[in-house]
């Protein structure tokens, strides 16, 4: 018994640097935010807080914006994540071959993940502009110009820009591909398997854990997008507090503007906690489906 206590104390002592930092900088602010979401906190009335119960949460479901924004966010996620994952994987498959200059391509495709968001968005903003490169290409084929940042195409443009960064998953995909044993391919070759069969019977099944990881991270990231729409289709100055065009009014954009443009801190906290629950639910759903399609080499514990 004494031995056990000693071990427990030792365990917590050893993890204490991380654990204390987590409590102080992770858990405490989060719970504090949760508490604020039940008050009427407005940015300056800290000494005069009133509890308002679920008022802010009710507002999320009754105001004209939050649910609309959630719908747009889910739409962007549903398009962005599968496409992004597929592109990331295909690029990795191409780059996995031993071709000359492979390293250069790897760098090029990974570059969008290194360029700061603000500069890449500004670059795209010019490419999407009326005299931008995209319209020039359309012009070359005698096609009509498109208002890329206007009402009808803004979301398409946003998704194109997001997919440009799909190479970010290349590193982890490549690591996954390198981990597939060579013997499997050799055995398949001996059995006379075609390249397609190898891809669909060996590579993809063995890559499912990596794909699964990319999908989960992609969904979590996609639901929290806010900087790109604000910078790409913000209405006026390239400032963070401007409103993007209606179609790109995503959920976290809404929360960000409510908190920092309108000082509706409490309502913003409620918005973010609801987002947390949505992310949690989607992740749980994805995890339950995973046992039907994700292939693990080793037995997984419950």
């Amino acid at each position, binding site marked *: 018994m004494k031995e*056990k*206590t000693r071990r*427990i*104390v030792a365990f*917590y002592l050893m993890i204490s640097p991380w*654990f*204390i930092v987590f*409590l*102080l900088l992770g858990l*405490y602010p989060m719970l504090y935010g949760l508490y604020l979401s039940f008050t*009427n*906190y*407005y*940015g*300056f*009335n*800290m*000494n*005069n807080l*009133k509890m308002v119960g679920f008022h802010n949460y009710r*507002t999320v479901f009754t*105001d*004209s914006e939050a649910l609309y924004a959630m719908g747009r966010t889910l739409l962007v996620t549903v398009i962005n994540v599968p496409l992004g994952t597929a592109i990331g994987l295909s690029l990795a498959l191409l780059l996995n071959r031993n071709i000359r200059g492979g390293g250069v391509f790897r760098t090029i495709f990974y570059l969008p993940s290194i360029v700061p968001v603000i500069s890449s968005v500004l670059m795209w*903003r*010019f490419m*999407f*502009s*009326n*005299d*931008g490169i995209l319209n020039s290409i359309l012009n070359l084929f005698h096609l009509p110009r498109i*208002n*890329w*940042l*206007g*009402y*009808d195409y803004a979301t398409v443009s946003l998704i194109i820009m997001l997919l440009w960064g799909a190479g970010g998953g290349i590193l982890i995909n490549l690591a996954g591909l390198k981990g597939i044993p060579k013997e499997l391919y050799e055995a398949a070759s001996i059995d006379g398997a075609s390249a397609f069969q190898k891809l669909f019977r060996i590579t993809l099944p063995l890559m499912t854990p990596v794909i699964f990881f990319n999908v989960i991270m992609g969904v979590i990231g996609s639901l929290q997008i806010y900087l790109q729409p604000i910078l790409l289709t913000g*209405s*006026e*100055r390239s400032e*963070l*507090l*401007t*409103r993007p*065009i*209606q179609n790109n009014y995503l959920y976290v954009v809404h929360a960000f*503007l409510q*908190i*920092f*443009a*309108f*000082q*509706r*801190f409490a*309502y913003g906290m409620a918005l973010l906690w609801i987002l947390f629950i949505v992310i949690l639910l989607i992740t749980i759903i994805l995890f339950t489906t995973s046992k039907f399609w994700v292939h693990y080499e080793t037995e997984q514990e419950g």
Partner: protein
Amino acid sequence: MKKAATLLSLTLLLVVILSACGGNANSSKNSDATDSNLSDATNTSAESGEVVTIKTSISDGELSKDQIAEFEKEHPNIKIELDPVDATKLAAKLATGDAPDVIRVNGVFDVPNYVIKDIAMDISSQIETSSVINKDDLLPIADVYRFDGKQVGAGPIYGLPKDWSNDFAIWYNKKAFETAGVPLPDPSKPLTWSEIMDLAKKLTMKDGDKITQYGLAASEWGKTEPNFNNMLQYLLSAGAKISASDNASVNFDNPAVKDYINMWVDAVKSNVGPNSLNNDQTSGGDLFTQGKVAMLIDGYWYGGVLRANENTKTHLGDFGMLPAPTAPGGKRVSPTGAATGAIINKNTKHPKEAWTFFEWYFGGKPADDRAKSGWGLPIFKSKVSLLPQDTDFDKQVYQVLQDELKYSGDYLEVNPYLSNSGWAIFDKYVQPLYFGKSNVDEAVKGMTKDANVVIQEAMNAIKK
């Protein structure tokens, strides 16, 4: 079980520690607040000889290192520290009680809002007794920093503008008028906004599909689209009020609001400037300095840009200022749209030193320096003559300005609870109109609904 118990006790311990911290922070904040109470002016924490640091969010472009050094030499007991904050950071700093002592603000939108939030210090008595700032020498525009709880322009003084401009005036490029074969309007009397729009359409030149010259840019930074600020000037001229007298609600369903929106939506659809429809990403200011747009809505300060810009300073004679337009049938007004300046943080620990700095910055030598530079208008009658008057360009602008000054004593009607939240709400409902996705009745209805939610929540938070 044992594990859980240990975890629980650890957590509890931390919670206790943290709540203790929180309690301390709160109580010390309260005592600060009483310290800094004005009636307690003698109770300031700076004893003689002690050096105190005054933090200000005035930017380094507006307060140079040399100026700071000069001030610190004259006042060895005060150190000035620049604490640049954007709106986001300031909101966070105000929330944690860590805001600068002298806070840079947009006079028109922030002052009423900061007053009702109890952030701005009443400096009426300091101004009354000041030897640097002569109250009788102030132009009416300085009163934009006064607020009596309901209306701007009356009540206690909460701060001063560092400078200001007649922000709704029109700058023109004579060459562009000649290209279009349109005569220059008479600068001695204002046009109406609808006349400006008609003029803008005539000045917009096309070569086939391509626009070679725009008629109008709505601002130096963005697109030729309406904005909340600009609408408030139109409403002021039309004599239309959208806020209830106690500011507890706002109603955009007003004929003047609809006229304003319709007029602008038509202008956007006619592509008189870069906008969301033609997706031209060049800013109004770039177009104007390159001679590709005939008119630009901006205040006196824009003359500073023209004097400094490489493209324009060689032929300044081509440019000039027209008075701020009016609503059709409305009265002539030329209010300021911003009047950037500062307030003193009510919770400052050093109200006396903060005032010393404030007085020097707004009434002392920096004020003269600013007036001479021509980047904005002074707030003192006696300093107006310091403005540049050398070149023909300076003279034209200065002359139009003399008239404009007579009409600058009206203030934009800003709802203190809504403050500048109006910008985003206005944009949200007007933007779909350009694309024909909504109609003006729905737009004003939506604006009214959203704005009243914000007002209601702000009022609930302020009510003790």
